[in-house]
């Protein structure tokens, strides 16, 4: 019998956090000088335990009993959230990475990532409240006045309020420039907000006394498009006119609760602001710069969504691994003796194919998110000369970090279901629930299509490939290091080949963009897929290099030997199963004109 689902492999966390991404190096940065390996490990350990002991056991009931809009116009989260929320707050999940000056503990994002992945794998919806509150508080920390910080940020960091991001409107989803929620200035310094939003997650739940909606709206008379959008803090309850602690209703109404496919423990709501003309909002950051400010939260959220994708694939992978070890079915090929007992399905090569493919996506994706977090730490707190480079790489990689785990994670989740056979297709078993959860990750925080336009249009072509060249330097260095460590040269050569293919394709698309920008971008999503594959192959090469070094001098059968050998096999799997797609995708980007020229009327 195997134990309960571990959610994430502890050995992999130790390997990625310490051996590959070298968390201990961060202690040399003044911002992190009060930490050491022990504080990092202890924090990850506490969160891992909370995830296993409290968050995961609550997952199924939260999925089965989603919050509804009650007759009193309010939405109430599952009762169990009232127990989980204070425990997550108490451990420090909301404020972990914030500086001590605002009540945080200045933990590197890299370490917080290694901890968060457990919470997300355990219960994506429960963690959603934390993630949103974190991002909303950080927005006010970065752009709000002292007064707003005290009024809204501190209560959010202390878990007394929660936060949301309120961007989407029924007619303005991917295209935020079209949003119409209005803000009218008043003499009192606040604005009166009026409009409707949709899909706003955690906008009402009853877990805390108040919810602060970080809302995008257009100040009366502002220019059209994205240049006329401003950011406001619009609380559910606002401070009353008298001084002291009286908080009054702020004219924010829930008009509907979305019946969701997954993430069912977290309500996503339709809201209307200012039905009585009495909804107050406070400007955060400069007028008309709202979208730029909001991008801070969106970029953080995109990295978080990448980790959501990894975590959701990870928990399903572990479930299918345990199932494959236990489920007896069939006999080895060639064994025709029906009196012999059937073997566990893990003995079948095809089942191992499905397991290894998942492992390659999960652990490759996790390494990608950790790399991104490491750049975020370097960009914010690293040695001054290295900050610009890290910031550029962070910005460049974000659409990949957001979408690879969502897209390939979905494949991974279908494999976990497949390993369960017919039982996987039953809601008695959990893989179908994770498959439902995973699907959201390619939609929210900017769909994969939007990430692709961002990557190819804004980050590769408009920049003339400048940051792509920085990334290529990193990859070349990794190839050289792999060769030095004695990694199978096939891997380094394959990555080198894929980089050449990419460089040639970028040159081709660059030339095409001069003549016909629309056509150059028509294959943006294929390009995103291609570059994501190259980048994750790079992460696998780095892991193979470290594993090879750790194996040196390790006696057979000792220590981490099995784990490290599996690492090498998984790297090989990624190079053989995923990397060859690069050539096909490049071909498609150059030659497939089917949908570029297709007349929509023909469909």
């Amino acid at each position, binding site marked *: 019998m195997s134990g309960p689902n571990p959610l994430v492999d502890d050995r992999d966390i130790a390997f990625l956090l310490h051996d590959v991404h070298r968390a201990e190096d961060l202690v040399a940065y003044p911002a992190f000088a009060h*930490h050491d390996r022990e*504080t990092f490990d202890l*924090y990850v350990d*506490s969160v891992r335990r909370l995830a296993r002991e409290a968050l995961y056991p609550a997952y199924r009931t939260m999925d089965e009993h989603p919050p509804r809009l009650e007759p009193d116009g309010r939405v109430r989260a599952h009762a169990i959230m009232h127990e989980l929320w204070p425990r997550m707050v108490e451990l*420090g999940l909301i404020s972990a990475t914030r500086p001590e000056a605002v009540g945080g503990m200045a933990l590197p994002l890299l370490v917080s990532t290694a901890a968060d992945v457990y919470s997300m794998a355990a219960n994506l919806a429960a963690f959603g409240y934390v993630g949103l509150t974190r991002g909303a508080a950080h927005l006010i920390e970065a752009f709000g006045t002292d007064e707003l910080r005290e009024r809204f940020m501190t209560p959010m960091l202390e878990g007394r309020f929660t936060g949301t991001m309120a961007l989407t409107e029924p007619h303005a989803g991917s295209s935020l420039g079209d949003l119409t929620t209005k803000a009218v200035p008043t003499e009192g310094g606040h604005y009166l907000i009026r409009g409707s939003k949709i899909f706003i997650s955690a906008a009402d739940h009853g877990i805390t006394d108040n919810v602060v909606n970080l809302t995008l709206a257009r100040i009366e008379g502002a220019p059209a498009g994205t240049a006329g959008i401003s950011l406001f803090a619009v609380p559910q309850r606002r401070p009353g006119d008298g001084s002291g602690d009286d908080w009054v209703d702020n004219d924010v109404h829930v008009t509907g609760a979305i019946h969701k496919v997954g993430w069912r423990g977290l309500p996503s709501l339709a809201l209307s602001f200012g039905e009585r003309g009495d909804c107050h909002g406070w400007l955060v950051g400069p007028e008309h710069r709202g979208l730029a400010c909001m991008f801070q939260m969106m970029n953080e959220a995109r990295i978080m969504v990448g980790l959501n994708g990894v975590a959701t694939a990870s928990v399903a992978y572990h479930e299918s691994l345990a199932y494959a070890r236990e489920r007896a079915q069939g006999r080895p090929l060639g064994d025709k003796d029906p009196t012999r*007992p059937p073997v566990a399905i893990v003995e079948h090569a095809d089942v191992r194919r499905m397991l290894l493919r998942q492992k390659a996506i999960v652990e490759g994706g996790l390494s990608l998110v950790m790399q991104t977090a490491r750049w975020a730490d370097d960009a914010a707190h690293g040695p001054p000369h290295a900050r610009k480079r890290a910031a550029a790489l962070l910005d460049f990689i974000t659409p990949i970090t957001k979408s690879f785990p969502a897209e390939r994670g979905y494949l991974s989740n279908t494999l976990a279901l497949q390993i369960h056979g017919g039982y996987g297709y039953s809601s008695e078993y959990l893989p179908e629930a994770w498959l439902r959860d995973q699907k959201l990750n390619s939609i929210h925080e900017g769909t994969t299509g939007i990430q692709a336009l961002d990557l190819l249009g804004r980050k590769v072509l408009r920049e003339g490939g400048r940051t792509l060249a920085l990334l290529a330097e990193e990859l070349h260095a990794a190839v050289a290091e792999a060769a030095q460590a004695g990694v199978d040269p096939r891997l380094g050569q394959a990555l080198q080949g894929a980089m050449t293919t990419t460089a040639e394709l970028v040159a081709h698309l660059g030339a095409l963009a001069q003549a016909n920008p629309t056509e150059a971008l028509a294959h943006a999503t294929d390009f995103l897929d291609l570059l994501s594959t190259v980048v994750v192959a790079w992460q696998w090469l780095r892991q193979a290099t470290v594993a090879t070094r750790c194996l040196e001098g390790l006696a057979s*059968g*000792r*220590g981490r030997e099995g784990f490290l050998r599996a690492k090498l096999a998984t790297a090989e799997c990624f190079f053989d199963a995923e990397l060859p797609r690069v050539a096909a995708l490049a071909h498609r980007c150059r030659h497939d004109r089917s949908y570029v020229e297709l007349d929509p009327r023909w469909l």
Partner: protein
Amino acid sequence: MKILVTVKRIPDPDESLKFAGNAIDTSSSKWVANAFDEYAVETALRMAEHIGNKDRLAEVIVCSVCPKDKRQHVTQFLAMGADRGVIVDADETAMDSQTVAKLVAEVFRREGCDLLVSGKLSQDSEGNEVAQRAAGLLDLPQASFAATLRWDRGANALTVGREVDDGVETKTIPLPAVVSVDLRIVLPHSVKNGATADDHKYSDGARLASLRGITMAKRKKVDVHTPAALGVTPSSHVAVAGVTAPEKRAAGQIVDSAQTLVNKLITEAKVL
């Protein structure tokens, strides 16, 4: 009031066992705190704290016999809320329980403690000896396997509900004393100190170390002694002859009726 709590690091019991020849291979083990020691520290903290007030009713000192650079478990307990630590710098894996008990008793004496709280056993060796031996060495009353505990501060005594084979035995012992705790001591209402409201509901289980606690733990005092400085010569009355994996359980049988089962239990298993 000074409470000394014994704490130990052990190879993660959730990992599958690996062997190196005649011994267990711990070279890649993750070392974690013994779960029963977490219950012991939780017990001491519930005794010491006065919920709703800032005052503390006792000082909680955690004591571990371990190499001084392998103290992550000690930091963990300081992060949970213990006030300070004492490390006896030694390779505990090479010591028998009697030596460990002598070291603990000596720390208890030197610190002038009023209460020793231990987990009932450590999950690696499952010896269940240290608390009882320490009580003997210190010549103090003891209550082992505590599932409930009430501290009567006026009478300077503890009333302990002990989990024994045939139920729960309630014992009142005067302080100073030794208590070893069982799993149920961390239920929401198991520990009462006469200050925190009797109906206060604690979270089920030992508390986790928060990030703030972890960061603060680094600033707490930890004294390091050697066995020699404590006047204890490590002895080993117990020698490990060898370690082997238990025999694999054979596959079960599925029988077609209750009658067959009864017959088999009588004739094959011979248990009826």
